[in-house]
């Protein structure tokens, strides 16, 4: 007699049922989280694990960069310290390490100065990016445990970086002001003309400026008082003006104040501290 249901068939059936249940669970958990606007359990678990991996990768990347900078500086060091290098190779690597530390010192000083000007600011480092590079986002190594909340502003010593869009216990995600979805109230400093700064996925465009505003190339643009930023933080300088005839408004393209390609340390400014402080003095 031929068995109609074997152990092998049963295992296959259980595997199929299990796969369907897992697929449904993932979909439900994700949808539930999307509806509530909070990170899902999966997101918490993944970001907690990713935090360790990304921090490690970022640290290794930093070390490799440091060694690279040291190697790049080697010819200069060789000219100055040829005799010393000949005697002791170990001293050369030590020297390169010290040079890298020295190169980083101004940035640290600037960050410390900006932190001092922003009471309550939370110092954080960049550890990752949007995996698909679709949104202009960076991941920070601080999350809700450090006091970061959604919509907090993020700045560095040069100006506005972006705002917090997602927070998990150990990490947070910043939507950069260069992203197409970013909208920040902005003011042309010279004439106090208002507009809205939005990203172009690389640079910043200030839109809805009154037609009678006499814009000039090189005009500085700063933040207006808003939800995430207080007034006066640098956004960039005007590099192109679009003043079409018959249009209700004019717009301008900005050269960002922040070098978005090499952001390593930032300060998160909690929304609660925005109203209490005066504008930060510029480092220069």
């Amino acid at each position: 007699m031929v068995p109609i249901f074997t152990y092998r068939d049963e295992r296959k059936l259980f595997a199929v049922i299990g796969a369907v249940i897992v697929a449904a669970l993932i979909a439900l958990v994700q949808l539930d989280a999307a509806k509530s606007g909070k990170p899902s359990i999966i997101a918490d678990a993944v970001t907690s694990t990713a935090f360790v991996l990304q921090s490690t990768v970022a640290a290794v990347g930093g070390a490799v960069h440091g060694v690279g900078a040291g190697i790049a500086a080697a010819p200069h060091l060789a000219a100055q310290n040829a005799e010393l290098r000949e005697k002791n190779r170990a001293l050369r690597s030590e020297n390169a390490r010290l040079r890298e530390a020295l190169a980083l010192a101004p940035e640290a000083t600037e960050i410390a100065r900006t932190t001092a000007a922003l009471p309550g600011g939370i110092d954080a480092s960049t550890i990752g990016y949007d995996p698909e590079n679709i949104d202009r986002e960076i991941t920070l190594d601080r999350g809700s445990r450090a006091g970061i909340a959604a919509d907090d502003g993020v700045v560095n010593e040069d100006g506005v970086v972006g705002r917090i869009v997602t927070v998990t216990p150990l990490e947070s995600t910043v939507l950069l002001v260069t992203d197409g979805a970013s909208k920040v109230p902005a003011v042309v400093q010279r004439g106090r003309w208002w507009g809205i700064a939005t990203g172009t996925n690389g640079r910043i465009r200030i839109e809805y400026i009154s037609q009678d505003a006499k814009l000039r190339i090189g005009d500085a643009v700063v933040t207006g008082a808003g939800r995430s930023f207080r007034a006066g933080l640098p956004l960039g300088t005007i590099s192109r003006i679009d003043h079409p005839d018959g249009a209700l408004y004019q717009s301008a393209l900005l050269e960002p104040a922040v070098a978005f390609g090499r952001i390593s340390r930032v300060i998160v400014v909690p929304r609660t501290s925005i109203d209490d402080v005066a504008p930060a003095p510029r480092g220069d």
Partner: protein
Amino acid sequence: MPVRSDEDIARTRAFWVANRPSESAAPAYVPGAPVWWHAALALIAALVVQASFSQTIAFRGATVSFVTLVVAWYGIRTGTLSGLVFGLIAGACEDALAGSSGVAWTFATGLAGLVAGAFARSWLSDIKAALIAGVAVLSLVRYAAFVVALQMQNRPLAMPETHLHAALWQAALNALVAFLALQFGLEIGGRLAHRR
């Protein structure tokens, strides 16, 4: 689409291993299902690389989606259901790391796994050109599904032209990496198998 039996696959695989890969008439690019932890490690590596270096490895605004490649690889070596589950897990991880995409990657990558799985054990899965073209098409399908999922969450993609451009570049980059993997990865794997 006609599906090959286990015996067919075993026979093709034995033929492939017995010959040097470059001389094989039936290359059998997708000989069987991978071990689960191989797939898990590949996914973790893909996620870490993308989350840490996506800006560094970006070309014309697009980055290679190693996650798509891993999902396509797993889907085509297993089947629709396994591909779907693996894609959902991979997408959920991407959503967690991306932050503001909601559930869009979960469903787009799940769909990609499902589509890849539909071609498992079919004649298409043994033709290198079809696999490479399939990766490009799958990348576009996934991107389109992502955009639709974003719209359904009331989060329309800003600057759609820029993103269309990036999607096309991503498809091309993914196909290029798939080509390199099939060309050199299998060559190396085949030689190792031949030695053993």
